[in-house]
């Protein structure tokens, strides 16, 4: 859906983005993360043809189209980090204006429907100048969805939102994705990216360091996982059932809970559970804990590890 080829942006001697080869696939939710100054917003602006690349190119949809064409931009919905709205317009007027701009059919109904989804239907006649930051962000969302775009580009979409608002946005994004939209999210809120995204791209110092599915990324970075098992009563002998496995790196028993640290090269949960049951220790609950996106992010960016191989492109 979005493909960048050796994309670069130079300001004087400084390269804000360099040799960027992104690949966002159709129908997925792609998370774009990186520390401040990594080049994420610059990348988004080049994708939208608001900034001209110094090198390389950006291709949208069928690989042949550049975003400088107005008809292409009709298929894109954008929510920027901050919403700069026309303070003298009402919410309705603002959305109606954009609806007309995008030639949305039945835009009145569409505006009402989307406003209801973000719980702003009772302030449609209020001036935008009086809106809070969170409300403005929601208005930005509605504006981005008005014309039912195929591609959503969200730059810090939950910035300024309360937890309720964040939840609403997450539901909105998931729902739109279920309808077939591709979503490209740039965010600092790694927990949200982790929950939402199918694939993640990690950027630092203008370069893309990693781009993969969450689990694959974690797997490539981590060597161990932890399996938590809960029993109905204390089972002091349960630890012995798994001690003999060569993939077990550590065992911790505390009350009814048994934690088994295992190698992360494959999924050993079945072996562990079978071994326990065969010895009469039946777990009532299990949980596999792997490295979080935050931990992966910090690892990658701190150590500037590039996990990109040809297979990832």
């Amino acid at each position, binding site marked *: 859906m979005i493909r960048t080829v050796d994309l670069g942006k130079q300001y004087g001697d400084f390269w804000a983005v360099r040799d960027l080869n992104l690949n966002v696939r159709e129908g997925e939710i792609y998370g774009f993360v990186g520390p401040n100054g990594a080049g994420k917003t*610059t990348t988004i602006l080049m994708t939208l043809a608001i900034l001209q690349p110094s090198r390389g190119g950006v291709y949208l949809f069928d690989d042949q189209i550049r975003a400088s064409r*107005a008809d292409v*931009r009709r298929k894109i919905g954008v929510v920027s980090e901050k919403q700069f709205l026309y303070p003298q317009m009402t919410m309705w007027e603002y959305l109606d204006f954009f609806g007309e701009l995008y030639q949305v059919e039945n835009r009145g109904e569409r505006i009402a429907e989307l406003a209801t989804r973000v719980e702003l239907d009772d302030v449609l006649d209020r001036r935008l100048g009086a809106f809070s930051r969170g409300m403005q962000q929601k208005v930005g969302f509605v504006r981005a969805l008005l014309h039912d775009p195929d591609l959503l580009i969200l730059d810090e979409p939950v910035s300024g939102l309360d937890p309720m608002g964040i939840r609403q946005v997450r539901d909105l994004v998931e729902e739109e994705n279920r309808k077939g939209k591709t979503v490209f999210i740039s965010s600092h809120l790694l927990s949200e990216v982790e929950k939402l995204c199918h694939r993640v791209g990690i950027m630092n110092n203008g370069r893309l360091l990693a781009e993969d599915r969450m689990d694959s990324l974690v797997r490539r970075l981590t060597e161990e996982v932890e399996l938590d098992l809960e029993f109905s009563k204390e089972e002091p002998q349960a630890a012995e059932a798994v001690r003999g496995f060569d993939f077990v790196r550590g065992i911790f028993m505390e009350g009814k809970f048994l934690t088994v640290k295992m190698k992360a090269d494959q999924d050993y949960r079945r072996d562990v559970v079978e071994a326990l049951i065969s010895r009469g220790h039946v777990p009532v609950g299990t949980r596999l804990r792997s490295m979080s996106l935050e931990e992966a992010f910090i690892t990658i960016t701190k150590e500037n590890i590039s996990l990109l191989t040809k297979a990832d492109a």
Partner: protein
Amino acid sequence: MGVLGFHPMWVLAKRELRSAIYGIGIYLTILLSLIISSVILQNYIKSVGRDQLLITASPLAYPLFIATVVCAVYLALSSVTSIAREKDMQTLEALFYGPVDHATYILSKYLKGVLSYIFIVLFLAAYFTVASTVSNLGLSLKFLGVLLLSLFLSSCVITFGIFVSTLAGSVRTSVLLFLGIAGGLIAFQISHGALVRIEEPSLAAALIYLRNTLAIINAGVKWTSPFHYMNQGMEAVSLGSVGKYVLSGALSMIYSAVALFASVLVLKRKGVRRTTGE
């Protein structure tokens, strides 16, 4: 500009026009221009009353022209601040997420200016109709000709304002730039005009050199000033020359086209964001 360019252009222009009509500025400008016209007209009528005879094809042409100059100044300032204000407010970028490109945007500003002027012209037409009836001066084809010509001339001023607006990053800078450039052009024209009227034997050698230098510069500079086209138009009207009239209109449109093209180039080069990204 893409195939879909006209629709977004129209939508943008409509929004801006609505914003102008909802404000009080345009009405105050019209009021001021009509008051000035009334003063001129009243003096006209009094002088006829005193001297008993006036022979002219279109007595309303001059007060109408003055009224259009006043309104053109408003349109110029409105254009000058328009792009800079959107950059200041950072609302410009959101437009470019959608089916709006640089050419569409600039043309929408121009269209808004022209539509605003047409809105103003309705008031001018109504006023002069009343004035001609009250005074029995009557409207003529020449008057309608001036009205139509004023549209072309105001186009020059609007596009000049748009161009200046693309150069500046903020409202204050754009206004100062406009006043500076416009003031400079006017001062240049005045000084050149004054020196040209003095014959060589009356001038010192240094002034002759200055005059000749200004003449060469003026040959080029005058074409960049929208006020030159207004002067040409006024001359065409006062001299009653159809040829000059048509030429004035045509040159105004060429000027406007060039200014718009230059505005698009400048906007592309400077970008639509007030600050660049990460």
